[in-house]
């Protein structure tokens, strides 16, 4: 390929802008990774503390009878 020296340099030159973009991308990656970990932790906490427990069908039926 016949690329000029100037053109090649414009891609490879490390500008302060590229550092900022890299920092932004790394930051976003860390935030998203942390969010995944947080949701996982929340799920474990909810499951172990019984917040997400499904009421047994018999218990629900009994409660309905009582309320009627």
């Amino acid at each position, binding site marked *: 390929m016949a690329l000029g020296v100037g053109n090649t340099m414009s891609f490879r030159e490390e*500008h302060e802008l590229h550092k900022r973009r890299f920092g932004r991308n790394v930051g976003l990656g860390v935030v998203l990774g942390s969010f995944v970990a947080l949701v996982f932790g929340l799920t474990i906490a909810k499951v172990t503390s019984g917040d997400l427990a499904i009421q047994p069908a018999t218990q629900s039926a009994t409660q309905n009878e009582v309320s009627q």
Partner: protein
Amino acid sequence: MSDASINTKTVDAGYGDAGFGDYFALLKPRVMSLVVFTAFVGLLAAPGVVHPMIGFASILFIAVGGGASGALNMWWDADIDAVMKRTKSRPVPAGRIGADEAKALGITLSVFAVVMLWLASNIVAAGLLAFTIFFYVVIYTMWLKRWTPQNIVIGGASGAFPPMIGWAVATGGISVESVLMFAIIFVWTPPHFWALCLFMNSDYEKAGVPMLTVTHGRRVTRNHILAYTLVLVPIAIGAGFTSIGGPIYLAVAVVLNALFLIGAFRIWRRSEDAAVADKYRVEKKFFALSLFYLFGHFGAIMAQAALAPYGIGGW
């Protein structure tokens, strides 16, 4: 498109080239730290036990919600932020982030924070967070801030909600104690900000924000600082006789309120000439004390809650 054109465009673009820190600054981290602290105290002081992971996530989502409202505030106020010395280096007026980008981020994070808080805790806490964001962005930023010198008084409510939200995370409701924590911050905000306005007046004037100092003068502002302090003292000390109080809180509250009252009285007694002569030393001291005042009260509530399991403190 040539390589050169790509490079030229991106280097000169300005907007869209902000670093990660700029986006973080958009969320007003200093305000967020106060939100985190007071929400945490509300959560800790509330009766009942919350799973640490749920507590941590809830505080985080409250902080994100607070940050989102900060981003929306920066979007709406970009024009006046550019005029004021204190705010002109913020990401939007400085040109590092576009106003529309701040708006998009603010709206997205607001919805995200409310929904996630609902999933993590309960609908009451999520509802309170949604109302807080609405109050800060629509009632305070869009409506009151540029319209009335009472902007700080009513708008201060948005900064007072976090301990109530923290309390709601643990209890799923509202109580006298959580309303009292709200009231402490709500009534504390006017004297805190008006003291700042007394020595930062020119900035608000330049931006056209109708602060009390600009619309009614400094004498009236000094009167108001004393009046609000007189209202604040019984609320802050009264909270000591509820379940969030105790001997530690009461001792801290009595000392801090005495100091705050003396400071407000000194501000009220002073003439403007005397204040100019010593470069607003008393006003600056009162402003610094106001920060310590709030931290002291909520720190004492936290201490009471932390020591309660050991039989120390609490009524």
